[in-house]
C-alpha cells in the first residue's frame, strides 16, 4: 500500500489553514528531516519530524511547546497481543507524526454506521512537529511476557528520595507514551488514539498534560522560564552536543542489553511547586536559591546567561557567591563528577488544590544513559541539600527504558521480541 496513493490527509483537506503556522515555525525546524510521504507538499512537510531513525524522535528533537504524557499498564498476559499492539501503534505513529489520520480517511470516511476510525479533533491541524516516543517500565520485565532476561540493569526501580511525597496514582507503568507537539490538541489526539487502539491490551494508569517547555534541547532555542520565573535549562545537553549525547544519553550494546543500543532511559517526575510561598520570597532570596539572576539568567557572579558557572568564586568573608545549597551548584556537572542529563520537562497547572493554591509545577522529563550513575546521584544531592526543596515537592515518579528508533519497516521495541 502506497502512502501517497491512499493518503487523504487532514492536511490535504485542510492543510493550507496551517501553512502560516508552519512557515512561522520553519526557522526553529531547521535540521528536522522531511517526511518522505509528504515531500511533494512543501507547505505541509515543514511541520513534520521524521519518525524513523537510529534514535526515537522526541529526545533531541527541539522541544515542542506542548506535551501529553501517558503511562499505561498491560492488562493481558498474552505476549503476542502485546507484540501486535506495538506494531499497530508504530503504524499509527508513522501516520500521525506525518500529519495523517490514524487510519486512512478515518474521521469521516468509515461509513455512517460505525464509529469513526480517527477521533477527528486534529483534522484541520498541521502535523505540528508531533513526536511520539515510547518507553518500557521496569514492571514490564516481570514474568508475564517472558521478558525478565531482557531487563537492562540501568532500568532500576527508582529509589524513594528524601522529601518525596509520591502519589501512587501518579507513578509507575508498564509502558509510556510521550507525545510532544506545537499544538496541544495534536498531542492529545495522538495519545487518545493510541490509547484507543490499545483497549483490551493496555489501560492508562496515569497521565499528565504539560505546556511551556521548561528547557531547550537545541542551541537554536531560547532558554524558557519555569513557573518560578527562572531560566532553568541553560546547562542542558543540547542536540548539538554530539559528544555529550554519545557519552551521557545514548545506550550502547556494551551497556548490557543489545536491544537497547541507540535507546535511552527516561525519568519522569511530577514536581509540585509551592508557587504562593515562592512568590513571597524576596528577589534576593529567589536568586540565592536558584544560583542565577532572574533577569538575564547569568550565574551569580557572572554577567551573561551562558557564562560558565564558577563554583569557586567567593564574596565577602569568602562565602561562595553561589551558595552551597543553591540549585545550580548541586545540579551542576562540576559538582557531580561530570554527570549531565538531557532535560525535556514541561510546566503544568492542574487547576487548584482545594485550599486555594495552584496545583502547579514542573513535569520533569529527562533522558540519560545510566540512571544509576546520572539522575540518581543528582537527585540525591538535590533532595537532601537543595534550598529549593523548601518550595517544591516530588509527587510522581516513573522510569522507562526508551528503545532505539525504528526503521521504515520495523516496529517499536522489536528487539525485545527477537
Amino acid at each position, binding site marked *: 500500500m502506497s502512502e501517497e496513493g491512499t493518503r487523504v490527509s487532514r492536511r490535504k483537506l485542510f492543510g493550507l489553514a496551517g501553512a502560516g503556522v508552519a512557515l512561522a515555525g520553519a526557522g526553529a525546524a531547521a535540521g528536522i528531516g522531511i517526511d518522505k510521504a509528504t515531500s511533494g507538499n512543501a507547505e505541509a512537510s515543514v511541520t513534520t519530524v521524521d519518525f524513523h531513525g537510529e534514535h526515537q524522535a522526541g529526545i533531541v528533537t527541539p522541544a515542542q511547546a506542548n506535551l501529553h504524557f501517558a503511562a499505561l499498564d498491560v492488562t493481558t498476559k498474552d505476549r503476542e497481543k502485546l507484540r501486535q499492539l506495538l506494531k499497530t501503534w508504530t503504524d499509527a505513529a508513522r501516520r500521525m507524526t506525518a500529519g495523517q489520520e490514524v487510519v486512512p480517511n478515518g474521521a469521516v470516511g468509515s461509513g455512517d454506521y460505525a464509529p469513526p476510525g480517527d477521533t477527528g479533533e486534529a483534522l484541520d491541524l498541521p502535523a505540528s512537529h508531533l513526536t511520539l516516543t515510547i518507553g518500557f517500565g521496569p514492571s514490564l520485565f516481570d514474568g508475564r511476557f517472558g521478558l525478565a532476561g531482557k531487563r537492562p540493569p540501568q532500568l532500576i526501580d527508582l529509589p524513594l528520595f528524601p522529601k518525596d511525597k509520591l502519589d501512587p496514582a501518579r507513578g509507575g507503568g508498564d509502558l509510556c507514551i510521550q507525545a510532544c507537539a506545537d499544538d496541544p490538541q495534536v498531542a492529545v489526539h495522538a495519545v487518545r488514539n493510541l490509547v484507543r487502539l490499545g483497549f483490551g491490551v493496555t489501560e492508562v494508569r496515569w497521565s499528565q498534560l504539560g505546556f511551556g517547555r521548561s528547557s531547550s534541547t537545541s542551541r537554536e532555542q531560547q532558554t524558557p522560564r519555569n513557573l518560578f520565573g527562572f531560566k532553568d535549562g541553560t546547562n542542558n545537553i543540547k542536540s548539538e552536543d554530539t559528544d555529550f549525547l554519545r557519552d551521557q544519553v545514548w545506550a550502547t550494546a556494551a551497556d548490557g542489553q543489545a536491544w537497547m543500543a541507540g535507546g535511552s532511559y527516561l525519568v519522569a517526575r511530577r514536581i509540585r511547586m509551592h508557587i504562593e510561598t515562592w512568590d513571597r520570597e524576596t528577589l534576593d532570596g529567589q536568586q540565592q536559591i536558584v544560583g542565577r539572576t532572574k533577569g538575564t539568567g547569568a550565574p551569580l557572579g557572572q554577567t551573561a546567561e551562558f*557564562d560558565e558557572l564558577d563554583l569557586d*568564586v567567593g564574596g565577602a568573608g569568602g562565602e561562595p557567591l553561589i551558595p552551597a545549597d543553591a540549585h545550580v551548584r548541586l545540579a551542576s556537572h562540576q559538582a557531580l563528577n561530570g554527570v549531565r542529563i538531557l532535560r525535556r520537562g514541561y510546566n503544568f497547572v492542574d487547576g487548584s488544590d482545594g485550599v486555594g493554591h495552584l496545583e502547579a509545577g514542573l513535569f520533569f522529563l529527562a533522558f540519560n544513559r545510566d540512571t544509576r550513575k546520572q539522575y540518581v546521584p543528582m537527585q*540525591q544531592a538535590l533532595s537532601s541539600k537543595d534550598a529549593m526543596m523548601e518550595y517544591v515537592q516530588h509527587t510522581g515518579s516513573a522510569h522507562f527504558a526508551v528503545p532505539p528508533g525504528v526503521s521504515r519497516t520495523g516496529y517499536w521495541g522489536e528487539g525485545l521480541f527477537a
Partner: protein
Amino acid sequence: MSVRKSPRTPLAVVAGAAALVALTACDSQGSTGNETAAAGGPIKVEATDTACTVSATTAGAGNVTFEITNKGTKVTEFYLYAEGDRIVGEVENIAPGLNRRLIVEVADAGKYQTACKPGMAGDGIRGEFTVTGGAAKQGDANAQKAQATKSYAGYVANNTAALEEETGKFVDLVKAGKVDEAKAAYARTRTYYERIEPVAEKFGDLDPAIDVREADLEPGQQFTGFHRLEKDLFVSGLQADSPQIADKLLTDVKDLVAKSKTFELTALDLANGAKGLLDEVATGKITGEEETFSHTDLWDFQANVDGSKGAITSLRPLLQERDAALVSTLDKEFANVQGLLDKTRAGEGFKLYNELSQDQVKEFASAVDALSEPLSKVAEVVSK
C-alpha cells in the same frame, strides 16, 4: 518541620550581583590616573608562580571585576582583602592555563590588597589596591533596629529556657516508660521549639537532629529527635533505643540553647524569620505533614504564629514609624488567624489535625495566605 530558612547571606554581595549589569558601565567613574581600570573593563590579573601582576591598582567603588589568568605551573587562588585581611572576594582552584573571573561589590572607599596564592598556600603575593568614591556605610547601627534585636533576644531567651526545662521533663517521662504522660507532654514541649525555629535553623546540624521528619531523612541519616520519639510514643511503641534517642535529644537541645545565647541576629533576620514561620505553616502544617504520628499539628501552628508575632512585636516601633498601614494590616490578619485557631481549641490544647474538616483546612490556608502576604513585605521596610 525542619526546613532551612537560612538568611541568604551575604546580602550586600548578592545585591551586587543582581545590579551588575547596570553597574559595570560606571565602575570606575570618578577615578583618575592611567593605572585605573578602564570604564566597564575588567582588571586583568596575571598570576605566575612568583608574580601577581594587576593591570590597575585603583577602582571606583561599586562592582569591580578581576579577570585572572594563571600562567604559572601551580594551581592558584586570587583574593581581594580589606583592612585586617577581611576577605572581600576570592576565587579558588585556578588551574594552570585557566582564566577565571571575580566580580565583587566594594561599597567603601579605602585601602585594599590583592593577592595571588600559587600552590593555594601562605599569605600570597600581595599588592596595594585603592578604592575611590564609595557609598556611606549602612548597617544595623540604627537605634531602633538595635532595640528590636535586643527585645527579640529576650523573647528567644525565655523560650529556650522553657524548651530546655520542658524537654528535660519529657525525656524523663520517655525514659521512665510513662507513655501516656509523655504523649501528653509531647506537643507542649515542642511549642517552645517551634516558636524560635528560625533561630534553631541557624545552627546547621542541630535543627535536623532535633526536628527531622522521617519522610525527609537522607540516605544514611539516623532518625532522631522529637519526631522519632513521636513515632515511638504514638505508633510503634517504645523501642530498645528510645532512651538513648531521648538522651541525645536533650543533649542537642542544651547545645542549641547554649549556642543561641551567643548568636547575634539582625533586624532583617527577624523580618525573614517572621515570614519563614508562616511559610512553614503554609507548606507543612496546612497539609498535616509535620506531626504524622500524633496529629498535633495545630500546637505547632499556634507556636509558629506566636513566634512570628514575637518577631513582629520586636520590630513594631520601627515598622510603625516607617509603614503604619502595614502594621495595622498585620494586626488584623494575625487576629484573623488567631480567631480560627481559637475555634479549634480543645481542653488545654487543640483538636487533632485529622479531626478538621476540609472546609476548616481551607479556611486556615486562606487566612495564612492573607497574613503571609503583608509579612513578606516587612523585610523590605526594615532594610530601607
